[in-house]
């Protein structure tokens, strides 16, 4: 893998001047993803923050071919681009050069409304990488709950009210769902750990067949933290084991980062406005429940990795 210095000399494929919020980790993640590529890439985004902030006509922040068609179908759309490439290459209608295909969607377009299209594309074995930029709610429409929203989090459709303490349900383990499709490569990553993320994108691009990476992208607006804390808060999501970094390569599970000391979840929760109400008297049990859930998942993941 390239060194930071080498990477800094690579051409930026996502330009500055886009309209993402200050402190947004999505463009940071996208820049890291595109830095991981050595061959030309075509990117497809569903409707969402990334799409609306980077392609306000007549401007575009993308220095590579890019397509958006709708909200629930990025995986289907990019699968069509990939097959179009295969067909035209086979018939000698385009130059014989390698092109990679990447879908990049939010948790709304991936966990929820785009879940079927993603499942279909993964099953059909397209040579594509799908990356979910999971900021744990529908941020583009104004912070509504998704199936990636953690239990207890306040969103505008799971508000912390007088009788309801935020979201009632635990989040869906999408990474495991996609791993169950028996695709060659699945991983979890975070832009706070750039080396790990770039490494995973390179592995995903190298496999023959579909690959999936779930990337946690802290959202300063939806989570409620100062913009300058975005990278730091991501690191703590990893050190608390709320967002473990791991990969599944051809059925083999492994942790790519093991925190030296597992930090308490509540320290991480406390820094975010979306969990503020959990620290009011009477809500202690929810924090305990969340910690127990993280512990259980961490144990399970470690066992899965040890089994290899």
């Amino acid at each position: 893998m390239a060194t930071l210095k080498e990477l800094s000399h690579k051409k930026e494929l996502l330009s500055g001047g886009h309209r993402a919020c200050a402190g947004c980790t999505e463009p940071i993640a996208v820049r890291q993803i595109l830095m991981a590529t050595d061959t030309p890439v075509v990117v497809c985004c569903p409707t969402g923050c990334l799409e609306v902030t980077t392609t306000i006509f007549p401007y575009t922040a993308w220095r590579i071919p890019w397509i958006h068609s709708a909200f629930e179908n990025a995986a289907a759309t990019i699968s069509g681009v990939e097959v179009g490439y295969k067909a035209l290459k086979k018939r000698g209608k385009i130059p014989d050069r390698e092109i990679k295909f990447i879908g990049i969607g939010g948790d709304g377009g991936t966990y929820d409304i785009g879940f079927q299209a993603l499942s279909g594309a993964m099953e059909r074995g397209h040579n594509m990488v799908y990356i979910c930029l999971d900021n744990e709610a529908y941020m583009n429409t104004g912070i509504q709950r998704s199936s990636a929203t953690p239990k207890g989090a306040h969103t505008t459709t799971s508000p912390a009210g007088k009788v309801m303490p935020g979201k009632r349900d635990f989040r869906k383990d999408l990474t495991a769902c996609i791993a169950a499709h028996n695709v060659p490569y699945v991983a979890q990553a975070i832009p706070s750990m750039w080396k790990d993320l770039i490494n995973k994108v390179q592995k995903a691009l190298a496999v023959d067949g579909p690959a999936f990476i779930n990337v946690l992208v802290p959202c300063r607006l939806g989570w409620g933290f100062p913009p300058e804390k975005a990278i730091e808060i991501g690191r703590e999501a990893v050190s608390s084991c709320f967002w473990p970094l791991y990969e599944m390569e051809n059925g083999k599970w492994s942790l790519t980062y093991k925190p030296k000391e597992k930090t308490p979840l509540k320290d991480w929760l406390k820094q975010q406005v979306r969990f503020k109400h959990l620290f009011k008297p009477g809500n202690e049990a929810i924090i305990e429940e969340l910690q127990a859930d993280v512990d259980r998942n961490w144990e399970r993941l470690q066992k899965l990795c040890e089994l290899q």
Partner: protein
Amino acid sequence: MRVAKTGNEAMAEAMRQINPDVVAAYPITPATEIVQIFSSFVADGLVNTEFIAAESEHSAMSACIGSCAAGARTMTSTSSQGLALMWEMLYIASGLRMPIVLAEVNRALSSPINIHCDHSDTMGARDSGWIQIYCENAQEAYDSLIQAVRIAEEALLPIMVSTDGFIISHGMESMEVLEDAQVKDFIGEYKPEHSLLDIDHPITIGAIDFTDYYFEHKRQTIEAMRNAKGIVAKIGQEFGEKFGRSYGFFEEYRLEDAEIAIVVLGSTAGTAKVVVDELRETGLKPGKGIKAGLLRLRLFRPFPYQELAQALSRIPRIAVMDRSDSLNSAGGPVFTEIRSALYDLDTRPKIVNYIYGLGGRNIDLAQIRSVYEDLATNKTDELVRYLGVRE
């Protein structure tokens, strides 16, 4: 070469000869066979198309958009609920100016669920920016699908060619097929102006337009649909010059001196022509013949309103037969548009609407004859009537 084929077999055969770069589809009755037959062509190496068996029609159309954006000649097929599930993507295909070709088989929309023919599915998509051609028989479906490839690519708009479910799709007919080389030569190579795969000239497709650009982009699509009319005419004529079967916007059957006429789409026209001949010869009661005529509309989008107005201007009484209802309490979609097309005539014909055949309800000679009888005896007081339904 003369062969016996069902409408679905004819459409699949056209697709084999077109040999598109990519087909992405999902099966649905009564269009399943088209995809099924085409899959066997792929499996047997009779085409070298890349076939995507999508997990839904929504994804099938999304994949078509992706493939078309990559610069590949792309086709699909569907019917009814499948077209309804594609609905969101139909608008996006036309807005992004993707020349996708869709082999459609008309089937009633739920609910109640029904698998038989009516036009509610494609009529529901009439404002989606797709060119629409309705066919009378398997021959026309075959010929039109071949023409559709050129029409779409020249107009830069998607196109659907439809047949009546089961009536045409599963009915066996004697028809002419062209040689593979003739089709290949007629459709030519697809050379898109822009492609996502042109790595050295990266483009952004599907950007967000706010109040400052959306209208201009829509206006361009509207203009493209206006231009499509000339393209449909040109290619229909060229097809005729080459292969002896010309196609226009509509077919006029004994209309030149007609005093009463029916306007209809699809397979019902065949039945109506028999009634026209009978009436011309023997009249309502054995004796004096009546000057009955027929206009079979083939191109519904773009809507050839000037040509229709001209063709119908001299006919005092007209009945439009719709195989779907707009549920607007004022008649079917073909009726309301034809009625509007006639508004500027100096002398407007009396025009009424008959809704018929919903959910595949059979339409026979006697029913069509009763429509002509109403026109002949001036029973035109009711704006909309329902034919062959128990009230």
